[in-house]
């Protein structure tokens, strides 16, 4: 099982890249755990999470090929 991760805004300065793939993650909590291990700087960053373009507030089960977006506070306009 594979999960696509997309990083936005200032978070890309911590992750350097915008797109990542993670395997062997069942839910967003375990995905975040792996992301934090790889990019400790994200732990102090502020962001919301979307799974397949839907914002989530709680731990959410992931399915193969889901896309998870990490989005810092919006600053359009």
């Amino acid at each position, binding site marked *: 099982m594979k999960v696509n991760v*997309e990083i*936005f*805004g*200032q978070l890309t300065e911590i992750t350097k890249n915008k797109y990542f793939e993670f395997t062997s993650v069942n839910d967003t909590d375990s995905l975040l755990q792996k992301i934090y291990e790889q990019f400790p700087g994200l732990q102090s960053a502020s962001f919301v999470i*979307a799974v397949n*373009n839907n914002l989530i507030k709680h731990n959410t089960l992931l399915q193969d090929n889901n896309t998870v*977006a990490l*989005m*810092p*506070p*919006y*600053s*359009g*306009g």
Partner: protein
Amino acid sequence: MPEKKIKNIFINGPILSSFIADSIQKHHTKTDIGGHSIFLGQVRADKINNKTIRAIEYTANETMALEKMYLIREEIFSKYELICMHVYHSLGNINVGEICLFVFTSSVHRKAAIEACNETVEKVKSLLPLWGKEIFDDESHQWKVNI
């Protein structure tokens, strides 16, 4: 169920005054309109610690932004007696003095257009997944924060 019509709002680069004029011009055939309200966001040359912003580079989660804009549009149309509403936001590099946001509402009586325009501007700024990277004249940068 009617088809959900997602309208594109993104323009690569600045929003030109000629584009705004064309948008206005297109409404001359809609003779039930009595008032238009327009908001334009322009990139400011803010000075921070002796450095001056020379541009903002905008990026977006485009799919999510368009989905959200669809919902905002539905909400605004259900709340106000609008005849039409157009929203455009720039992506990419926008220099100071250039326009990055264009919100345009029209109604029979002015009140609806004015209030809908204001509310839409607030929602666009707070609810659309868009990010502005402020580029200084020495090529350093900081990330825009909406207060």
